[in-house]
């Protein structure tokens, strides 16, 4: 065993010397390889964490949301709709929701304005608002500061910032402005008794599909959104996004694959001569292949470990800063959020398999062809 280990060490010594003779090319390859692993791993970790975050955060979303449609557009819920739904068997709680958007022309940003359920711990008094962290940051608001918003009647209304929503909830509340129901109705000129939509809590979640059918029968002009649809929306968005980014990256991956394959399989005349000399001085074919195997392993393992570690730090310690411009698009408000790390062993194994193995194998096949050939013809370059 000791002899075997010593032999491998000598092979590694020789491999590193051989790599050092073509330092620029090999360092370039290693950097490129690491960058590719970094990008792939960053996309994988980021989408995976966002997907889990969405599922965990939205698990408490209303079981069913009922919207009213007029000529294919979302419209206000008339006062009698809540009563009609409340009478359905299987509905535990019916609650009208008040929410909408406010465009701030100075900041050129859309806020989501909402009237929280009255009486709860998130309730705000008349004349007061609670604002999300990003809104507060952009306007420079602190607790008890005053904020002026232009109502839909054209009148300027002053609100006092009663509280700032927590930093931990920014992924959901960055652009949120909470105000009392009374303020909401007068600010937007909402007719009394009407709501934006209705949130239902069902007694038995297994019956939610049947209930949706009953709602659609009772209120034919309604659109029913189930919680599972909300969760599925986000699941599919992140799958799609991962796919889009990977598709964009595929150009870089293919370029790298061509470069690596050329480097690994198209042996240079120097390398061929080196193999010829090694064979001529007594190296066996197996030793030459082992040497190349070590070369592939050292480069691909180094690239994988460095690339993955850098991707982890990028996503979870530096808040995926490189992806922010992609996600932000034309949005003025963007949450400053920290993701909870979730490492999926299967995805990690897949990444390892598709980044380390192909290169390690690509280095062995051509060298086997050269190593089994007569040393003289290899050195003469007739291979």
């Amino acid at each position, binding site marked *: 065993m000791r002899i075997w280990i010593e032999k491998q*060490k000598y092979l590694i*010594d020789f491999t590193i010397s051989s790599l050092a003779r073509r330092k620029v090319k090999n360092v370039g390859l290693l950097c490129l390889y690491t960058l590719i692993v970094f990008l792939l791993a960053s996309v994988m970790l980021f989408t995976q964490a966002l997907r889990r975050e969405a599922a965990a955060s939205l698990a408490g979303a209303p079981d069913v949301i009922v919207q009213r449609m007029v000529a294919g557009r979302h419209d206000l819920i008339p006062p009698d709709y809540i009563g009609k739904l409340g009478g359905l068997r299987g509905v535990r709680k019916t609650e009208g929701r008040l929410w909408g958007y406010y465009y701030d022309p100075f900041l050129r940003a*859309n806020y989501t304005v909402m009237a929280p*359920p009255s009486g709860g711990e*998130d309730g705000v008094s008349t004349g007061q608002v609670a604002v999300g962290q990003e809104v507060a940051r952009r306007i420079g608001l602190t607790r008890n500061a005053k904020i002026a918003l232009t109502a839909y009647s054209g009148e300027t209304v002053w609100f006092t910032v009663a509280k700032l929503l927590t930093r*931990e909830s920014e992924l959901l*509340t960055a652009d949120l402005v909470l105000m009392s129901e009374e303020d909401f109705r007068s600010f937007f000129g909402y007719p009394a008794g009407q709501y934006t939509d209705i949130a239902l809590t069902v007694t038995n979640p297994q019956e939610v599909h049947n209930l949706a059918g009953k709602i659609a029968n009772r209120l034919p002009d309604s659109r029913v959104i189930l919680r599972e649809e*909300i969760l599925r929306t986000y699941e599919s968005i992140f799958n799609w996004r991962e796919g889009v980014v990977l598709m964009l990256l595929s150009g870089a991956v293919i370029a790298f694959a061509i470069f690596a394959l050329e480097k690994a399989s198209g042996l240079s005349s120097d390398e061929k001569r080196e193999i010829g000399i090694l064979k001529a001085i007594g190296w066996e074919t197996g030793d030459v292949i082992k040497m190349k195997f070590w070369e592939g392993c050292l480069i691909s393992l180094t690239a994988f470990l460095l690339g993955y570690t850098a991707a982890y730090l990028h996503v979870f310690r530096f808040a995926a800063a490189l992806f922010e411009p992609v996600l932000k698009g034309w949005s003025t408000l963007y949450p400053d959020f920290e993701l909870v790390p979730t490492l999926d062993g299967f995805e990690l194994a897949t990444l390892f398999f598709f980044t380390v193995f192909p290169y390690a194998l690509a280095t062995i096949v051509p060298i086997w062809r050269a190593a089994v050939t007569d040393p003289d013809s290899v050195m003469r370059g007739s291979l």
Partner: protein
Amino acid sequence: MTAVRLGSRLARRSHRALAFLTAIAGLFLLTFADAAWLRNCRAPGARAQAELAKRLGLTDLCLFTEARYTRHLSQADWHSAFQDHPGALEHFPSGSLVPPPAIPLHHANLDRKTKISD
């Protein structure tokens, strides 16, 4: 003495390479420990966020605030991210990140697909 022995050991290229590989493998393993630690640290915040979402009845992540139908993806009108027709090019950059519905009518005919039990 130990430093001299270590120095003489690291004089060999294979030892240096293996030491480097071990070091970066250690960093790689540390990411798992760090992930567990961060999970513990950020878990209360995540729980508070989920509770707030439940209390307020929030339905969407605040990732794309550029337009109302990208802000509330799950609440938007049918095909609203692709208003002209499903799969149409979107005006906003996030339109390239949000897929068109696979079957455009899938969403609408819930009443006709659902059996009413009683």
